[in-house]
């Protein structure tokens, strides 16, 4: 029998005006039809930091993350406000394509296009009007270097992306996202399909990337959260229970549900 925790008892940090934020949600609710999957989500993400979202399976991490760049459009109903550069992007009039170029996303399973490595990166760029060869080449190199893949593929850019290993494919997906020059990067369990060595590579990549991007990452792996993130939010049954600097969260969780989850004595 799952232990009952009060949803009233939460410990969610807020930031003062001096902290510059990458984005913020205010009273966000998500419904899948009549299924209320996300309740009053209030989270703020500091710029140029990695924020980890943790919690048990089905707690709503992906639901939350996918709402941030409006990938839930047409799948779920999202209410409340999502603030990004002073604009509430959860409005019908907002250009979602534009938003997604600024808020990139990497998925759980590597999903490179069935095209060459080069095409994986330039396809969306060209679709967005970047046509100059020199600029495209520059973006290919920069993004692949950013994703720590350049050395492995620089001689084979015309090879099929599907012939890469899982870890390389995932780094290609990261490269593809950062080639769009986003400023927020959302990652949904990007390492869950990878072996430990590839995982380390992706983690190193992310640590490097936070200098330029603000990163929000969903992970099941608490070691991973503590290795790479500065902030950490704990989700439970569609509620955000605790949000704190990662060090504090793991050494000194404030409320019983987080204490139990981190101690591994959950439910």
């Amino acid at each position, binding site marked *: 029998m799952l232990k009952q925790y009060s949803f009233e008892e939460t410990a969610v940090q807020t930031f003062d005006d001096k902290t510059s934020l990458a984005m913020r949600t205010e009273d966000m609710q998500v419904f899948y039809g009549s299924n209320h999957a996300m309740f009053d989500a209030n989270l703020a993400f500091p710029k140029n930091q990695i924020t980890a979202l943790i919690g048990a399976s089905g707690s709503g991490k992906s639901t939350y993350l996918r709402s941030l760049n409006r990938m839930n459009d047409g799948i779920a109903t999202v209410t409340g406000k999502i603030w990004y550069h002073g604009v509430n992007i959860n409005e019908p009039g907002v250009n979602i394509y534009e938003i*997604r170029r600024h808020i990139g996303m990497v998925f759980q399973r590597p*999903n490179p296009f069935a095209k060459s490595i080069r095409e994986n990166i330039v396809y969306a760029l060209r679709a967005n009007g970047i046509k100059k060869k020199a600029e495209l080449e520059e973006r290919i190199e920069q993004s692949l270097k950013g994703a720590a893949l350049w050395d492995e593929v620089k001689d084979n850019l015309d090879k099929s992306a599907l012939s890469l290993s899982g870890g390389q494919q995932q780094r290609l997906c990261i490269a593809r996202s950062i080639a769009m020059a986003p400023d927020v990067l959302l990652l949904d369990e990007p390492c869950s399909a990878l072996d430990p060595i590839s995982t380390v590579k992706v983690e190193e990549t992310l640590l490097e990337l936070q200098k330029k991007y603000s990163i929000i990452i969903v992970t099941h792996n608490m070691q991973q959260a503590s290795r790479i993130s500065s902030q950490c939010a704990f989700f439970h049954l569609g509620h955000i229970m605790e949000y704190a600097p990662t060090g504090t969260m793991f050494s000194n969780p404030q409320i019983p549900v987080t204490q139990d989850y981190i101690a591994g004595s959950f439910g």
Partner: protein
Amino acid sequence: MNAKRTDFIATVVIDLIVASVVGILFFLLAYILTAGLPHVSWSFLTGATDAFSGAGGIGVQLFNSFYLLLLTMLISVPISLGAGIYLAEYAKDNWRTSLIRSAIEVLSSLPSVVVGLFGFLLFVVKFKIGFSVISGSIALTFFNLPLLTRNIEESLSAVSRSQREAGLSLGLSKWKTELGIILPVALPGIVTGIVLSAGRVFGEAAALIYTAGQSAPVTNFADWNPMDPASPLNPFRPAETLAVHIWKVNTEGLASNAAALSAAASAVLIIAVLLFNLGARLLGNYLYRRVTASK
């Protein structure tokens, strides 16, 4: 009976069934080919038919078959591509979509002779187009559309959702994602389906008897202006196809060697259809390798 024994018996039974299917196919092919091929010659393939007796070559019919096929595909591929994309990507899961699906289902199960009669009454008689290539290809389109649409929808739906999400998450529009990401992946399957349906269209007779007609007026193969009545490209001339010719020679052929004629034409028809099947396979594989850049 123990599990191992049951397994063994089941395997044997299934093997026998498979073997008999393959056996029947090979017997059929061998029979048609041995009966027909000895009568096939270059002059038979290219020669003209005697309009009265049906004797002579099948040159015009062979051309008509390909021309009709081409026109049919030109009409039906774009329409079914649109319909397939709509059903796979845009159609909501509601009563209207299920109505469309049932309509497609019904259309695909209409007997071809009924489609032919409909085409006859509407195009040939009512619109006064007469027996013509165009009437025939519209009739064939009716019967080609549902199969192609279904094939295209299935090929598109088989592409993983994660590919669509990847496209959308990069800020591509739905349409751009569909055209640039999903369609190329689905293309090998779609092309295979198109070529296979081409084989079916090529061999169709019943829908054409009353639409494209049963006469193959001698055409002037030096005249390629589609507006000229004598041009082979004129879509308004009657055009007996190879399959219709076989039917006609057998039912009302007056030639003394009618049996040999139809056997030879059948062999040619079968070979063409086999080539379509083989081509579908090769082309599909080739495209798959091209599209995924896996050399």
